[in-house]
């Protein structure tokens, strides 16, 4: 089992550019969540996708958008990059999404994509 895989592992972009990050969930998982982790901070929830729709969103601007594909993989897009967007972007997958209120089982995280905006 490959677990949660993310690509690329590292990325350097210039202010104002756009970036796309990718995530493949753990086998059997249908729900993907994205988190941003700034240096020395805990992960901050960006949004969650289930059944190809954004189910919940954290306190992030519209420059952050996403997509989930029929095979449950997901993309995170960030437009008009700012220096403050430099962070580790984490993808977490889980299952049991139909049961509202359920723990949604354990969230398994990928190794993240380290984005540096210069």
């Amino acid at each position, binding site marked *: 089992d490959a677990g949660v895989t993310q690509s690329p592992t590292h990325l350097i972009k210039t202010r104002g550019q756009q970036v796309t990050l990718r995530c493949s969930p753990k086998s059997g998982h249908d729900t993907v969540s994205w988190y941003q982790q700034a240096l020395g901070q*805990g992960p901050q929830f960006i949004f969650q996708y289930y059944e190809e729709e954004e*189910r*919940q969103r954290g306190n992030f601007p519209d420059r952050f958008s996403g997509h989930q594909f029929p095979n449950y993989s997901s993309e995170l897009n960030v437009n008009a990059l700012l220096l403050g967007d430099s962070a580790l972007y984490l993808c977490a997958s889980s299952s049991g999404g139909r049961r*509202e209120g359920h723990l949604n089982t354990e*969230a*398994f*995280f*990928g*190794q993240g994509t380290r984005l540096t905006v210069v």
Partner: protein
Amino acid sequence: QKEVEQDPGPLSVPEGAIVSLNCTYSNSAFQYFMWYRQYSRKGPELLMYTYSSGNKEDGRFTAQVDKSSKYISLFIRDSQPSDSATYLCAKKRNDYKLSFGAGTTVTVRA
């Protein structure tokens, strides 16, 4: 006010010592509490989760929740150098997001 506040650390302990990690939380709605371990340049790894007050043990790890004081703790017994990592507490309500503390970096000295 942040939903989860975590003692900042860092902590440095000798091998074999007990490591004690603490967090407080706001919002008392029904929720789960988790502890994650994150090694440098890696994603978080779930260690334990619980939803009730009291203690939950898993090997050398004990998670403790006190809902009356909104306090969650993780204890690591017989700590090993391989336990050196950042430990993140988190909580999850009936919605879907995890709310994390800022993390405590632990170093276990051989």
